[in-house]
């Protein structure tokens, strides 16, 4: 049995948690934008799968990683427009339409995989780690925090960006007011429809990019259903976060840390049943949810907006 408390092991677990948190951050922050404006998008998983496939396919054809990310973002945007049309314009039940979008995305990505790649598992050269000068040379810390790929760095940079947008800008104020009280926002001249379209599209673009991180910034291959429920966990993380970017960061890191920890415990031969080990991240998330109850939930979350004409 190895030593779980050795410096190398502890930093190894932290490093893996930082990398594993990447898709949760993109998808979770995207869903945060959705929900801040009062839209509940359960289609994240489907958008992620389409993002994963489109990024992989473009990189496989062109070898250009930037094009892959752009493709995932564009596909995410298109799916966001579909979601907006259904849930904002047509005012359909958001939960149901989101599930529909997930089924559509998962199914279409499988179909495209079979038709364009003959269902063959192929690999591409994805994003490689970038060592930050000087910082990357610090023992343990450098390897853990400053030798990651570009998409990992960008995911963490998104946290302050989202905080600033949501809490320090006029746009953020409009978004939050639409999520809390769309009637009042409308009275003050804020276009509820436009803001909701914008947020759903931002969220979907980030979900598409989250999918791309699987296929070109982590595993560097495409396989059907490879996101394996990450989209649903991202939705749960937004509740966990108390609808705040730093909460998404904390939740994503906690979930990923426990996942990395249980894998390391298995490798080190620490005698714990594997099924229990696998349940740990989920158990911890549920327990934390019980204690973390936020009063900041958008009051109009998942409520379609009907403009009063009288």
């Amino acid at each position, binding site marked *: 049995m*190895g030593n779980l408390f050795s410096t190398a*092991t502890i930093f*190894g677990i932290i490093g*893996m948690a930082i990398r*594993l948190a990447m898709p949760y951050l993109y998808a979770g922050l995207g869903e945060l934008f959705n929900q801040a404006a009062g839209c509940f998008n359960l289609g994240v998983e489907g958008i992620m799968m389409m993002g994963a496939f489109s990024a992989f396919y473009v990189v496989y054809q062109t070898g250009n990683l930037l094009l892959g990310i752009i493709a995932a973002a564009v596909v995410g945007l298109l799916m966001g427009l579909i979601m907006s049309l259904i849930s904002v314009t047509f005012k359909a039940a958001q939960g149901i339409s989101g599930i529909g979008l997930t089924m559509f995305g998962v199914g279409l990505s499988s179909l495209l995989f079979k038709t364009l790649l003959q*269902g*063959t*598992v192929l*690999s591409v050269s994805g994003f490689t780690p970038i060592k930050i000068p000087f910082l990357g040379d610090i023992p343990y810390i450098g390897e853990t925090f400053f030798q990651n790929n570009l998409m990992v760095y960008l995911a963490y940079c998104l946290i302050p960006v989202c905080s600033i947008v949501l809490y320090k800008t006029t746009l953020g104020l409009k978004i939050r007011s639409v999520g809390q009280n769309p009637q009042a926002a409308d009275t003050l001249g804020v276009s509820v429809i436009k803001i909701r379209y914008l947020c759903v599209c931002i969220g979907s673009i980030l979900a598409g990019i989250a999918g791309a991180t*699987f296929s070109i910034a*982590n*595993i*560097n*291959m495409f*396989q*059907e*259903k*490879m*996101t*394996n429920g*990450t989209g649903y966990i991202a939705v749960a993380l937004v509740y966990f976060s108390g609808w705040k970017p730093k909460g998404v960061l904390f939740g994503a890191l906690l979930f990923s840390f426990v*996942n*990395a920890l249980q*894998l*390391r415990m*298995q*490798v*080190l*031969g620490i005698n714990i049943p*594997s*099924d229990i*080990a*696998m349940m740990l991240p989920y158990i911890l998330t549920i327990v934390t949810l019980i204690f973390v109850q936020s009063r900041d939930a958008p009051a109009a979350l998942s409520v379609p907006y009907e403009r009063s004409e009288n």
Partner: protein
Amino acid sequence: MSKKFSIMILFVCVVMTLLSVPVLAEDEVFQVAMVMPSKINDYSFSQSMYEALKVLQSEAGEDSFEIVYSEDMFNVADAREAIRDYADMGFDLVIAHGSQYGTSIQEIAPDYPETAFAWGNGTDFFGLDNVSVYQASAEQGGYVFGQIAAAVSENGKLGVCGPVESGDAKTYIDGFKNGAAEAGAEVSVTYTSSFSDVSLMSAAAETHMDEGAMVLTGTSQSIPGAVSVVKERDGLWLGVQWDTIPLAPENVLVSLVYDWTPILDEIIGNMAEGVYGGAAYDLTFENGGLQILWNTENLDIDQELIDMADDLAQKIVDGEIVPLPAG
């Protein structure tokens, strides 16, 4: 309105009748249906059976050996309906290629005594004379691969990425651990509790390699995730169930291929003699069902290593080596 409705009913009946004619005419064709939890190209369990059926089809000719299949039947309720549908349609042999399909077979098979059912990795044919069960003696390959991995590892550390602690995944891993331990290597094992989570499988492989294991093995449809990490970090991978060399030609040393053709030959041969089941079959080195496929095309592999593996396999066949530890 009622006249139109009657015409529609008549039309549907005519179409149904016409559609059934080719089936009757094709009675000479041996029809096999396969229900599987993943894909026919999963580099794993499902692909091994599909490829075996294709071999039999190429031998018999496409006109006289028909294969149909249902993929992604991880949901047992869906699989049960598919199995019943194939039996209804009069298929000669219905293969339920997943350990989770046992209760479905037990429920459906008595209703179709003229259809042969095969269940893998099955454990029991429930006393039914139209049900056969088959499974792989994966521990045999596991033992040999444990010895191979120990021989090629520079530091004696080996990693195993498993899905769940059951079925042939577990017996392979147990055999691997035993073989490696007898060769003096240290084995760490992770289970992801999933057959499909490629991301977690990738993280598991990364964890093994972080702890110094550069020679890894694993089983399930999610192993492409682990192989991608091995490829990226230039380690060695030992594949199981099907040929995994195409996933990483420079990193896959060897694959333990399940070749189900000997067992299918036996099942179909028995059917020709009017025996539709009531038997259990094991895939072993002895019957040629377990095959060691070396990546000699891309890697420079020591002939002594190949000879050692062949020798160990022969000793297992001869009963000189017991792959699993006693008890």
